[in-house]
C-alpha cells in the first residue's frame, strides 16, 4: 500500500511540474506583452527598459522558466502586476472562498446524486425512475449561468428571499451571531445550489447505471437466494459494491466543479479564485494567471489522486497491480 501511495504521489508531482511548464510557455508565447498596460506616449523608453529589467523580463525565456520553477518550489508565486501584492497573499485570500463553494457543492452533489440515482435504480422504469430521468437529463443539459439567472430571477428579484451577490451583506461587527450567520448562509445558498444541482444530475445518471449493472451480478442473486429482503439486498449489499466506482467518478468531476465555479463566481460576485481567474486573464496579469492555472491543475490532480487512493483502499485488488473492476483507465 505504501509503495502504491508513493508511486501515485510521484506521478502527481511530475504531472504538476508538467502543468506548470505547459502553462508558463503558453502564456509567454502568446502575443502581447506583460508590460502593455504601462505603455503611454509620454513614457521614457529608458523607464520601460528599467521596469523590464526589474521584473526580470529581459532574460532569455529558459532562464525565466527556471527561475519561475525554482520560486514555485519554494512557494513564491511572484507579485501581481495589477495589484502589486504578492500572489500568494491574493491566493490565500481567494482560495478558501472558492473552497467553501466547491466543497459544499461536492458534498451536496454526492448526497443528492447518489441518493436520487439509487432511488431511480430501486424501481427501474417505474414512475419515479422515468420522471427522475427526465429531470436529470434537463438539469444535466442546462448551462449553469442560465440556471443561475433563473434562480436569481425567481428567488432574488421576484420573491426577495435570497441575496444574489457577494458573500455577505451584514458586516461582521454588527448585531449578534445569528443574524450574521443567517446572512452568510443565505448568500451561500444560491451559488452552491446552482453548482451542485447540475453535477448531481450527472452523478445520479451514472449512479443509476452503475447500480443497475450491479444488481444483475451473481452475488445479488446469492443474497436473494439466502432469503434477504429486497430492500436489504439493494441498499446494503448492492450499494456497497457500486459505491467505490461512483466515488471514483466524483473524483474525476472535480475539474468540472472548478470550471463551473468560474462562471458562478462571476455571476454572484463571489470574490473567489474563479473571479480572480477571469479578472486576471482579462487584465493580462501574467503571474496571477500562471498561479491560478497552476493551483487549479493541482487541485484537479489532487482530486484524482484522492479518488484513486480511495478506490485502492476499497478494492485491494487494485493495489497489487491486478485490474479488478477498475474503471476503464
Amino acid at each position, binding site marked *: 500500500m505504501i509503495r502504491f501511495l508513493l508511486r501515485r504521489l510521484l506521478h502527481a508531482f511530475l504531472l504538476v511540474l508538467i502543468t506548470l511548464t505547459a502553462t508558463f510557455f503558453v502564456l509567454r508565447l502568446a502575443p502581447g506583452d506583460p508590460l502593455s498596460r504601462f505603455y503611454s506616449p509620454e513614457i521614457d523608453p529608458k523607464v520601460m527598459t528599467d521596469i523590464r529589467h526589474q521584473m526580470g523580463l529581459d532574460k532569455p525565456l529558459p532562464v525565466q522558466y527556471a527561475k519561475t520553477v525554482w520560486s514555485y518550489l519554494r512557494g513564491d508565486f511572484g507579485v501581481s502586476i495589477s495589484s502589486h501584492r504578492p500572489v500568494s497573499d491574493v491566493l490565500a485570500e481567494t482560495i478558501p472562498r472558492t473552497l467553501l463553494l466547491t466543497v459544499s457543492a461536492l458534498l451536496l452533489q454526492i448526497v443528492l446524486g447518489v441518493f436520487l440515482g439509487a432511488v431511480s435504480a430501486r424501481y427501474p422504469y417505474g414512475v419515479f425512475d422515468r420522471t427522475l430521468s427526465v429531470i436529470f437529463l434537463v438539469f444535466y443539459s*442546462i448551462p449553469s449561468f442560465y440556471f443561475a439567472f433563473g434562480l436569481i430571477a425567481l428567488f432574488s428579484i*421576484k420573491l426577495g428571499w435570497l441575496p444574489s451577490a457577494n458573500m455577505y451583506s451584514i458586516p461582521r461587527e454588527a448585531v449578534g451571531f445569528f443574524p450574521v450567520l443567517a446572512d452568510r448562509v443565505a448568500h451561500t445558498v444560491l451559488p452552491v445550489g446552482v453548482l451542485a444541482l447540475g453535477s448531481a444530475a450527472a452523478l445520479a445518471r451514472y449512479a443509476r447505471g452503475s447500480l443497475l449493472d450491479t444488481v444483475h451480478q451473481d452475488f445479488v442473486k446469492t443474497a436473494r437466494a439466502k432469503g434477504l429482503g429486497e430492500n436489504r439486498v439493494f441498499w446494503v449489499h448492492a450499494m456497497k459494491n457500486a459505491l467505490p466506482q461512483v466515488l471514483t467518478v466524483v473524483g474525476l468531476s472535480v475539474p468540472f466543479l472548478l470550471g463551473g465555479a468560474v462562471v458562478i463566481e462571476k455571476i454572484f460576485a463571489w470574490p473567489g479564485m474563479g473571479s480572480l*481567474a477571469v479578472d486576471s486573464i482579462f487584465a493580462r496579469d501574467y503571474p496571477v494567471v500562471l498561479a491560478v492555472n497552476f493551483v487549479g491543475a493541482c487541485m484537479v490532480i489532487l482530486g484524482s489522486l484522492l479518488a484513486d487512493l480511495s478506490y485502492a483502499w476499497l478494492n485491494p485488488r487494485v493495489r497489487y497491480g491486478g485490474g479488478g473492476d477498475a474503471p476503464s483507465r
Partner: protein
Amino acid sequence: MAATRRVLRYVPGGRPGRGPWVAAVCSAFFYLYAGVLVARLSAWIDLFRSPAPDGVGGAVAAAAGLVLFYAAAVYPGIVDERASGKVFADRSRRFRAHKPAVVGLVVFLFFLGVSLLAPLIAPYDPSVQTDPAVERYQSPSASHLFGTDKFGRDILSRVIFGARVSLGVGVSAVLLATLLGTLVGAASGYAGGRVDDAAMRVVDGLLAFPRLLLLLTLVAFFANSIWLVVAVLALTGWMGFARLIRAEVLVLKESDFVQAAVAGGVGRGRIVWRHLIPNTLGTVVVAATLRFAMLILLESYLSFLGLGVQPPTPSWGGMVFDGREVLVAAWWVSAFPGLAIVGAVVACNLVGDGLRDALDVRMG
C-alpha cells in the same frame, strides 16, 4: 500463438525513448507547440478571422461532414461491402423503439436545418439596430415573436443566427477531436508496449487540466477568433476519444479476423485503417454525439464570458449575458437563447443515448 504475438507487437521505427516519462514530456511540448502553431496560423491567415460558420460554404461543409460520419457508423455497408442491409434495419428499429431518441433526432435536425437556412428564414437582420426609442425591449408580439433586445434587434432572428455559431463550432470541434483521438488511440492501442504506456500517460496528464480555465486563458491571450475556439475545444477534448478507442482496439486486436489478416500478411497501417477503426465506429459515434452536446454547452459558457464570437455576431451564450440586467423586466432577452441551448443539448444527449442502445455499445 507465440508467433502471432510477435507479429502483433509493433514498434515503430526503432527503439522508443528512454522511459515513458521522457516520451511524455516530449509529447507535452509537441502538443504545446502545435497549439501555438495553430493560434499563430489563425492570426496570420486573415481568412480564419472571419466567423466562417456564417458563410454558407462553411455550414454546408460541416453538415456534409456530419452526415458522412454518422452514415459510416450506422450503415455498415459503407465500410464493409459484404454487410447485409439487415444490420441497418436492425439498428434502425432499435433506435426507433426509443421515443425520446427519435424526438431528439427530429429536434436536432430541426436545429440543423434552421442553422443552414438562416438567411432565408430569419424575419429580420440580426445585427441591424432599429430606432432604439421605439423598438427596444419590446415584449414578444406578433411582429417580434421573441421580442427585441436593448438595441431593438429581433431576438428570434438572433437566436436563428446564433444556431449557426453554436452548431458550427460544435460540429467542427467534435469532428476534429474525433479524428485526433481516433488516430492516437488506435495507433497507441495497436502498438502496445511502451509507446502505449507513454501515450496514455500523456493523455492522463492532459485530462488533468481544468478545461474551462485553460480555454479562457488560451482564447483570451491569443486571437479572439472563432477558429481558435474550435481548435482549442478540439485540442482539449480529444483525450476521451483516445482512451475509448484504445480500449476497443485492445480488445479487437485479439479477435480472429485481425489475427487472420495479420497471418495473411496485411501491413500494419492497413490493419489499423481497414480492420480496426471501422469496427470502432459505433463507439466513436456515440461518444461524439455526447461530446457534441457538451461542446455546445462549453461554447455557450465561452460566449457568455465574452470570448469567441464578437458582437454583433449573435451567439446564444452572449445573448443570455446581455439580458442580465433585465432578468425579470425583460425576461425574453435571456430566456429564449437559453431555451435554445437547453433544447439543443437535450436533443443531442437523447440521440446519443438512443444510438448507444441501437448500436449496442458498451461505454465503460
